[in-house]
């Protein structure tokens, strides 16, 4: 950070040296920590990726929060409440990790609220029935876990540590979702139909969560070189499909892909083409619920303003009018 301020050729030489030291650490699997020298591009990539991840956790509370008051039993309700509370916690871990890179919480939230930063477009799909909550836990959290387990080995220390904590907590999310699907899939004909309908709607968006194909992914190769990402989009997507198909079989539900087929020679499932037009429309447009999600988010932030100010005033009063910390 210091050397970037030197405007002469000496600074370029220093930067080359610093960059080589940085790359050596990456090669040797030594984690990069907040105050270490890092290339601007690495910093920017991480801020973008960690913030997008944090925003996804925060916005992700909405589609599920939608069903808390209508959960069918008390047990399901407390389970879902705990899950949504976890998502909030995960957002907090990740915002803190992003902030170690020199961006403020305020700026992160401003960029989200002004649409200058994205979150996963999976959260712009509506949750139409209770079965969607099961499908989200099973598939959306399942896909997230595959991605996050890989990110536990990311090269930036604070991000890796946040991922480890998050992975520990997420497995409960996926299990509670799958347990809901098991109950529905073994229920009445209507319940089975509900479960199948949810699978039909959430399967393809879940596959799209891994992002574009490796050949189309604009950030991938540099991120892999810096070990920000450890496995490619396509590798992770294949892994998710391979572990999820047997789970669908157990439910005796049908994955909505006629081309899905075990390929003995590859040792993987083959699967049909993803509708990338839908993906890019969802990424670049508001999706089905994007405007609503953002409005809810901004309202929550603005309506909480007086609480934040009151807490600050109370802290000041309690400390006898001096500084708060």
């Amino acid at each position, binding site marked *: 950070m210091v050397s970037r301020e030197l405007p002469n050729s000496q600074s370029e030489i220093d930067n080359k040296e610093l960059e080589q030291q940085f790359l050596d650490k990456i090669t040797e699997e030594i984690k990069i920590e907040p*105050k270490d020298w890092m290339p601007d591009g690495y910093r920017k990539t991480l801020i973008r990726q960690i913030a997008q991840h944090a925003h996804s956790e925060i916005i992700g509370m909405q589609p599920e929060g939608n069903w808390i008051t209508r959960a069918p039993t008390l047990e399901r309700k407390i389970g879902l409440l705990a899950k949504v*509370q976890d998502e909030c*916690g995960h957002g907090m871990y990740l915002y803190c990790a992003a902030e170690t890179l020199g961006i*403020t919480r305020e700026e992160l939230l401003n960029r989200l609220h002004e649409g200058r930063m994205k979150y996963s477009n999976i959260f712009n799909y509506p949750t139409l029935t209770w079965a969607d909550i099961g499908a989200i836990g099973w598939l959306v959290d399942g896909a997230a876990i595959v991605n996050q387990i890989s990110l536990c080995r990311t090269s930036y220390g604070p991000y890796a540590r*946040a991922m480890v904590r998050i992975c520990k907590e997420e497995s409960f999310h996926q299990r509670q979702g799958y347990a809901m699907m098991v109950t529905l899939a073994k229920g009445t004909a209507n319940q089975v139909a509900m479960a199948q309908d949810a699978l039909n709607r959430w399967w393809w968006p879940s596959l799209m969560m891994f992002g574009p194909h490796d050949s189309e992914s604009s950030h991938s190769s540099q991120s892999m070189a810096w070990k920000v990402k450890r496995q490619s989009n396509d590798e992770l997507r294949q892994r998710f499909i391979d572990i999820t198909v047997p789970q669908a079989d157990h439910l005796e539900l049908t994955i909505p892909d006629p081309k899905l087929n075990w390929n003995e020679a590859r040792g993987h499932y083959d699967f049909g083409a993803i509708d990338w037009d839908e993906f890019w429309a969802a990424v670049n447009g508001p999706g089905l619920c994007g405007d609503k999600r953002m409005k809810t988010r901004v309202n929550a932030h603005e309506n909480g303003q007086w609480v934040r100010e009151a*807490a600050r005033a109370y*802290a000041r009063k309690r400390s006898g009018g001096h500084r708060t910390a």
Partner: protein
Amino acid sequence: MKAESGQWPLWEVFVRSKQGLTHQHIGSLYAADAPMALGNARDLYTRRQEGVSIWVVPSGEITASSPEDQGPFFEPANDKVYRHPTFYPVPDGIENL
């Protein structure tokens, strides 16, 4: 710290996971004051009984060594192999040493 922006101060959180272990840094959070920092730390970092004791410290109160000085700062320990037991030969047949 950033009073003008309205952001609460940042706190570092240390958790003792069980009796007999030291407090370990686990993360950070924002809170208006110390009691709120403790409460938030409990809600954020010990939702599954991960702790029996929590410390919260204003981040600005921590003095840290800097990465640029890492080499010279820790250098004095580099050439002192005689501080390690492996520096000293043990005759064959001698045990419990």
